[in-house]
């Protein structure tokens, strides 16, 4: 049973980074192709090609963004809280969100101009053949209206990408944002 209380933090709350130890080395064929996929995926979002973006996503996707909480003492590193989330999406809800963006979604109309910077990419093999854990750092700059100051966010993404018919598809993404109080005025964009 999930313990929803704030003070009691579940044991998974520290999990970050790679879990598997079977590393896919930098510069290898798989590493390069996955990196290229991450870049292309980021471009599809920055260029607002949502159909292209959805094409990267598997039907069984789990797309979540847990909360961060400032903690101290023995719990100082248990700061990823998975009982509450900023995103809690499945394939259907992602279609609902991208569908909404093509209509009267005033939060993105006029659209914000975004740049997603994907770095520090580390990859390992999952137990299931053809599945890869991909951990990356994400830095998003978001320019809105005529505001000369961008909104920005940094996060770690813990993904699982699956090789399907010669292309990599996103099966899981957990976005671990760094702020406990977000400075971005909404998450009308994907991370």
């Amino acid at each position, binding site marked *: *049973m*999930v313990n*929803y*209380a*704030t*003070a*009691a933090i579940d044991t998974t709350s520290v999990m970050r980074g790679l879990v598997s130890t079977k590393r896919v080395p930098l510069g290898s064929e798989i590493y390069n192709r996955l990196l290229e996929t991450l870049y292309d995926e980021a471009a599809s979002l920055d260029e607002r090609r949502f159909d292209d973006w959805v094409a990267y996503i598997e039907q069984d996707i789990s797309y979540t*963004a847990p*909360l961060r*909480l*400032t*903690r*101290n*003492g023995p*719990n100082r590193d248990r700061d990823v*809280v998975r*009982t*509450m*989330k*900023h*995103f*809690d999406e499945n394939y*259907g*809800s992602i279609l*609902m*969100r991208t*569908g*909404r963006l093509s*209509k*009267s*979604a*005033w*939060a*993105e109309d006029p659209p914000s101009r975004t740049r997603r910077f994907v770095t520090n990419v580390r990859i390992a093999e999952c137990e299931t053949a053809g599945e890869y854990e991909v951990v990356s750092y994400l830095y998003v700059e978001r320019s809105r*209206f005529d505001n000369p100051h961008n909104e920005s966010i940094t996060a770690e993404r813990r993904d699982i990408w699956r090789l399907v018919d010669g292309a990599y598809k996103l099966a899981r993404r957990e976005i671990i944002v760094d702020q*406990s*109080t*977000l*400075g*971005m*005025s*909404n*998450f*009308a964009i994907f991370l």
Partner: protein
Amino acid sequence: MLHNPGVTLNDGTTLDDLINRDMNEVSLRVMNDKELYELEMERIFARTWLLLGHESEIPKAGDYVMRDMAEDNVIVTRARDGEIHVMLNVCPHRGMKVCTAEAGNAQAHRCIYHGWAFRPDGSFIGAPIEKEQMHGNKHSKDELGLKKARVHLYGGLIFATWSKDLSFDDYLGDAKFYLDQLFCRTDNGLEMLGPPQRFVLPCNWKIPGEQSGSDGFHTLTLHRSLMEGGIMGGTAESIYDTAPGMYGVDVSVPQGHTLRCLEAAQTFKMFADVSFEGKSTEERLNLLSPPGITKDLIPQLFKNLSEDQVNQLANIPPQVGGMFPNILIAFIFAPRMDGGASGALSLHTYVPKGPDKVEFINFIFAEKDAPEDVKRDMLQNAIWSTGTSGTIEQDDADTWPQIMRNSRGHMSKTMTLKYQALHGHERPEGWVGGGDLYPGFTKDDTQWAWWMAYYNLMAEA
């Protein structure tokens, strides 16, 4: 109308210049005035009850969460005897933050600066090296505790105030009859489903505050995507003809709390084509249970609420509204994308962080006795529609900073906000709840009531 001298700004502007009660207009300047903001801190936020969280967040002795009462940082704790305390997170020694974490468990809160320590009930334990009496000799130890606010639990919600005399009953007034239907309806009450979502917006707290005074109008335009998604019934083409969700009974009380009560039969049409006609209260509750209420919990409604309250909950339940000054209530029917009904229970507070900054805090709930899968479902629904990524509130959060930006212009700030679509109050036949009632199509009455509550508190010097 009598001139009210309660507020006079440095340039001679009075409260009556800012809030024109004859014309039902508010100067845009109120959204961007530093002097007014300072007065609000004292006359509103230090004088009324503020929502800080829910007791389910701190179930065990020593549990605490850090929250804000306007710009004052406080620690909300549970002491050894189970009592909940709210105290200023300011060390009486040199002003350091005593608690630096947002949540946790501690039997003593020790200031990291020089080591003064306090119990979860705020009392002073001592300073290091007791024999040298580091805390001096001008105050006795029981004068050196953390400054405490008064606390009241309502349906498990933790409210606190710096006011010495305002009773919680006087604060709620006639809104209690309606709010009980949301917060006090089951044996074990509500449970928070995790720590709140928090984000900061560049706007004055009154911009979301007045919208939470039950602004019904903005639903059809700003939240048009609800219609396009079929979530409100009807289609994008028919919305202005059918105006779904716009008819009901709006309620306000002089304390500034407001609610929109929407006919369950109307809501029901969005889900299924079954008539509500001639059905008993119990049958209605079973056909379309209020958001968050499972079939198993229905008998508890009859146990915890009066007959009048259950009837209202079955027929024309309160669904959205606000509690003065800075709380939004969204207890909404939320159809699932895979068909079927679900719900979202969330409360927001809009915590002022300067004249041009507000922290939006989103607390998400389910009934404590609901099964795990229902809680899971409600959490997901509340995340989809409200808060940081919510498809409803994305659009709100994008609008408010634009109003804020306009409040800076020399000419713009002389513009007025207009609350002139007024219905006037009128009591529908057979209605048992109190307050001023505005049946029919939603109008500006409740938001004007919010401003009058603001006016009255600000005018009281």
